[in-house]
Each structure stands twice: as structure tokens, then as C-alpha cells.
């Protein structure tokens, strides 16, 4: 019994790590750039599908794909913000109008990216096997790929946290999140920072996509499901809070693995129930301001 319990718990934590990484990017985009990026999952999908193509087509190691997809997504996110969202920011009369307009634009982006992916990869489900060697861990068996992705997730999360709290750019991002107008007066190049945050969010999504493709099967329409999970996690942890995203990710991962163990069909329903209850009692999230 304890063995099963331990297995369920560890599965939940491993899943939670991935959820956390997915959500940090979305949280950054919403917390700083005020964009509820519905197309977030599409960047995850692009990362995953690119990795699959590189691995099965050219034999490139998924770990190398991390270094390819991350910077590529960073650059495209940066450019998308500089062209699309910056123009929207200039034309919107109030922050509330920008929030709804940018959400609609992100919907548009989602349709475009998904359609492009469908043209390239069609709707077939793909998978490859990488490092799926069983490893003994705390008395139960786990795939080496799962443990590796968890390790990478934690390293990226920690590195990002240190980047935000220790570097000069990190400080500028935090200032821009707190009060864009004042930060601008203090010499922070706001438009640059917002675009950087959007790009970083996209990069994290792509990296998460690479990691997901190492453990699960992937396809061109998987994006929305992950977007929804990211939104739930972010609301759970508090919009714009990085530690909140990690806390929320782990909670949701644990709930997911426990409910899957008890009643497999209800995992997604459980996520939504938590999401709705939380929105009703504490819409600012567990660690939100």
C-alpha cells in the first residue's frame, strides 16, 4: 500500500515539475506583459514537434534540441511582441482594453500556429523513445527520461529565479511588472523589457515542449490542452508569481496523479473543479498579491 502511495506521489511530483515549467512562462507573459497568451501551448507544441523531427529525421539528441528550440522561440516571441502586441499596447485606451484585445490577438496567433503545424506535420500522433530505461528510485521503477526531465525542469526554474532576483535585467523586469510607468521614468526601456518577457515565456514553453516530447506522445493539436493546464496552474499559484507557478504546478501534478489512480477519466474534471473553486474563493491565487 505504501509502495503504491509513494509511486502515485512521485509520479505526481514528476508531472508537477513539467506543469510548473509550462506555467512559469505564461505567468511571466501575463504578470509583466499583461498578455494572457492563449497561444502558449502552441509554442510547447512547436518545441515538441521540432524535437521529434530533429530526432527521428536527423538523429539529433533531444538535449541538443533544447539549445536549438529555446533561443529560436525567444527570438520569435521577442519579434511577435515588437510587431503585434506593441502596436496593440499603443492603440488600446486602457490596460483593461489591452488585456482583452491582446487575449483575442493571442487566440488569432493560436489558430495561425496550429494551422501551420497541421500543414507541416498533419494531425498524426508521434512519439520516439529516448532514455526510456527503467531506473530504481525509492523502491519503485521510473523511466530515466522522466527523472532527467524533472532535473532539467528544476535547474531551469532555479536559474530563472536567480536571473530575476540577482541580475540587472531581472531587476528591470520586476520593476516593469510592478509599475511600468515609473520603471520607464527610471530609465528602464519598457518596450524592450515587455518584449523580452514575452520571448522568455515563449522560450520556456518551447523548452517544456522538448521535455514533454521525451516522455509523452505528441501531435500538432496538443497545444490547447497544455495552455489550459498552464492557465489553471497560474491561477492556482497567483498570476505573475514565479514561486506560485511552481507551487501550483506541484499541487496540480499531485492532484492529477491521485485522481488518475482513483478514477482515470476524471483527472481533467478535477483540474477544472479546483480551478473554479479557487477562482470563486481566491481569484488572486495562493501566492498572489
Amino acid at each position: 500500500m505504501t509502495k503504491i502511495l509513494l509511486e502515485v506521489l512521485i509520479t505526481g511530483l514528476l508531472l508537477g515539475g513539467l506543469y510548473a515549467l509550462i506555467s512559469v512562462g505564461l505567468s511571466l507573459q501575463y504578470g509583466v506583459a499583461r498578455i494572457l497568451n492563449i497561444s502558449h501551448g502552441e509554442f510547447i507544441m512547436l518545441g515538441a514537434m521540432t524535437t521529434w523531427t530533429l530526432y527521428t529525421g536527423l538523429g539529433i539528441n533531444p538535449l541538443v534540441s533544447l539549445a536549438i528550440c529555446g533561443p529560436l522561440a525567444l527570438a520569435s516571441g521577442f519579434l511577435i511582441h515588437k510587431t503585434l502586441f506593441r502596436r496593440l499596447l499603443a492603440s488600446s485606451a486602457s490596460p483593461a482594453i489591452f488585456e482583452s484585445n491582446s487575449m483575442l490577438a493571442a487566440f488569432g496567433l493560436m489558430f495561425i500556429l496550429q494551422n501551420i503545424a497541421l500543414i507541416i506535420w498533419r494531425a498524426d500522433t508521434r512519439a520516439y523513445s529516448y532514455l526510456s530505461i527503467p531506473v530504481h528510485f525509492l523502491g519503485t521503477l521510473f523511466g530515466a527520461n522522466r527523472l532527467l526531465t524533472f532535473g532539467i525542469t528544476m535547474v531551469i526554474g532555479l536559474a530563472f529565479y536567480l536571473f530575476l532576483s540577482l541580475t540587472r535585467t531581472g531587476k528591470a523586469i520586476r520593476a516593469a511588472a510592478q509599475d511600468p510607468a515609473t520603471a520607464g521614468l527610471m530609465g528602464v526601456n519598457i518596450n524592450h523589457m515587455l518584449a523580452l518577457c514575452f520571448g522568455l515565456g515563449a522560450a520556456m514553453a518551447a523548452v517544456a515542449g522538448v521535455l514533454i516530447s521525451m516522455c509523452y506522445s505528441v501531435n500538432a493539436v496538443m497545444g490547447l490542452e497544455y495552455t489550459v493546464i498552464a492557465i489553471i496552474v497560474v491561477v492556482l499559484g497567483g498570476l505573475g508569481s514565479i514561486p506560485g507557478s511552481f507551487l501550483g504546478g506541484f499541487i496540480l501534478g499531485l492532484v492529477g496523479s491521485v485522481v488518475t489512480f482513483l478514477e482515470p477519466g476524471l483527472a481533467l474534471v478535477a483540474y477544472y473543479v479546483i480551478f473554479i473553486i479557487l477562482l470563486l474563493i481566491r481569484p488572486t491565487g495562493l501566492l498572489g498579491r
Partner: protein
Amino acid sequence: MKPGNRNLQRLWGPGLAVVILALLATFPLYASAYGIILVTDILMFVILALSWALFSAPTGYISLAPAAFFGVGIYTSAILGRQLPLPLVVFLGGLISFSLALLVGALTLRLRGIYFAMFTFGLVELIKHFWLWYEIKFTGTRGRFVVVVDQRTIYLIMFTIFVLLLLTTYLIRRSRLGLALRSIGECEEAAAHIGVNVNALKTVTFALSAIFMGAAGSVIAARWTYVDPYIAFNPLYSFMAVLMAIFGGIGNPYGPILGAVIFAYLEEVLLTRFPYYYMLIFGTVLIITVLYLPEGLIGLIMKIRKRLAGGQDALA
């Protein structure tokens, strides 16, 4: 300009509306089978977009729940369609959607802005996954067959719902209710302070708009023959309703109608001619609309008309 001319101009709009409604009412008498199917589809999207705008346009709350109420209507039809006549099923579909919206609205309309949008989006997915689990667990199958009804009957019921929705939209806009709703959109705190019962009003209007979405779902299900939770609770219907309304312009009820007619027709053409690029075009139009047409097509038309009228006055 002479005053008589002005009066004539004022009659022009309603006159055109009456002619179009008369043409639509007699449509099954002379249209081809394909024509009836196409116009039924267009009317369905008009109903979705216009009923979305009924609540969301004046208040500024972006609801992504249309697919939830639409789907409830579809399933009402799938479950009760065998035993009851279609008009009664449609009425029940509207009623069940209304009750669900009343409950949901009372619980959640305290949420503002982006939170409300996320909640309503979650609602569609929650109902879909719950129903999926329920069907597999308790009925052992996924999906149901719906009793097929004559195309003309479906068309006429859809048209009746559309007329009722037009009437409701018109009456609400003209009444104190409409004014109160607009005051919520302008500034909710101020509206509450002047004595508007903000929460009750939002909830009732939200539920009212759900009736038409549910009813439209109940009718169209009779044509689809087979439904399952993925078909019935497809979030695309929420996005479509929002997109069509915003594309047409939500400052004026003609906006969502215009947007839905153009978009539904485009969808038909695009889906048959470019099935692989359909979403690409859809997304591009959405982004262009948000960027360059913040007040939608109607806003653009009004701007052009104002400029033309201004030019005439200046000449006179």
C-alpha cells in the same frame, strides 16, 4: 438638407430590415435545398454572435461560455429528441441553458475582466470532460444519434429564434435595463452607487442570452444526426461567436449580425475550398480586426458615412 429628406433617411434602415425579414420568412418557398441549409447555418452563427453581444457588448465582460450553452442545447435535443416534438425540445433547451446560466452567473459574475473570461472558458471544458466521463462510465458508449427532422422545419424554427432574439435585443436597448447595463460597462462602481442592482442585472442578462444559444443548439442538433461531447462542447463555437461579433462591431446590434453573416458565409467557402488553410485565414482576420478595426466593420462604415455626410454639409 430638407427635413423631409431626413425623415426618409430615418425610414430607410427599418424599411430594409422589414424587407430582409420578409424575404427570410418566405425563403423555404423558393430556395433550393442547399440554400436552406446554408442560410440555417448563417442564422445559427448570427444567433450565437448576437446573443453573445446582448450581454457582453454593453457590460464589457468577455464571456467564452457560448459553447457551453450551445452544447447543453445540443444534448437536450439528443436526449429528448426521440420522445418530444422539436419545438418543445427547443424550448426546453433554452430553458435548461437559462437555468444553468443563472446558476453560473450568480456564482461567478463577481469575477472581473480576464478572470471571468478564463472561468467561462473553463466551464466549457469542465462540462465536456465531465459528460465524456459520464457517458463512458454509465452508458458505456460515447455519443448519441439524433432524430433527423425536415430541413424546412429546422430553418423555420431557427428563423423564429432569430426574430425573438432581435426583438429582445431591441427591447433591452430601448429600456432602462439597457441603460443600466451600459452604465455597468462604463463604470461598475458608479453604477452600483446610483442604485443599479449590478449583480442581479448581470446575472439575468447573462442567463437571457444563454436561452438563445441553447435554443440554437437544440435546433441544429436535429440536423447533425450524431453528436458526442467533443462535437457538442467545442470551444470553437465560443471563439466564433466572439470573433464574429467583434469583427462586425459591438457598438451597435447590426455589427454582430453583419459580422456573423460575412463570417459564416466565408467559413462555408473557405472550408470547402481551402480546408487546410481555414484556421490560418481565421486567425489572420482576427488579428487584423483587433489591430486595425477596433470598432469593427460597423465602426468603419459609420466613420465613412460620417465623413461623407460631413462633406455634404460642408458643401451646402
